[in-house]
């Protein structure tokens, strides 16, 4: 089945939810669903690990701003 952004007559049944979801979408670096990528071995565990390591010190700083 196919969608076209130019024919959206029934594509936005809940504008309020859609607006909220779009706002969250913009704050995310990715909105990817990755089941197929995982099945085909395309998840870069090294990148995940480095990403986690890089974000942890930021989280600690945010949790203890006075320190």
């Amino acid at each position: 089945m196919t969608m076209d952004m130019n024919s959206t007559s029934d594509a936005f049944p809940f504008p309020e939810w859609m607006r909220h979801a779009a706002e969250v979408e913009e704050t995310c670096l990715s909105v990817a669903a990755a089941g197929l990528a995982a099945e085909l071995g395309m998840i870069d565990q090294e990148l995940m690990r480095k990403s986690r390591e890089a974000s942890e010190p930021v989280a600690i700083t945010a949790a203890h701003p006075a320190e």
Partner: protein
Amino acid sequence: MALLVAPEDLLTLESVWTPERSRILLEIARAGLPYSERPQSLNWNWRAKAQHLRLVPASGFAVVCDDEWQGAMLTKSGTHFSQLGEDHGKPLVYIDFLEVAPWNWTIPGIGQTRKYGLIGPHLFERAVRQSWDEGFGGRVGLHALPQSVPFYGGACWMTPLGPDVDFENLTYFELSRDNAERILERHL
């Protein structure tokens, strides 16, 4: 322009998206962005998996605007079953793949703002509607990248069911029938 999406169409998609991925990768390298600020799907290479894609039993959807693929999604219908509450064991629509075009990623570290928004919500809502239309009550399941967790857990009202060891420890999410009805605004 409207396009039919099948698993092997990811190869066509990649021929368009790969140059953009390369450009972003270069800008990220120049800016010295930390790993936490890099999109976690940046390294996906569907061309290397072409042989496998032809065997994937999925159908899908594309969002096309300005004659460009703005996003795409592959779904499997009735092959996965709910792990949630009273609907446990009932079939659902599983989103095997959902991705928006690289030019629609907002990457603050390199000053990139998305060209089009709403692509992710648009595709997700379509999967919910597919589930409803096929008699699955709007139930949807998927595995999310860590960077996608706030989107599916926060914006899409899905329930996180923890890391799945069979899927590279990605978090498995499900949308309940109740929340599907809220999204579709169909109250029985």
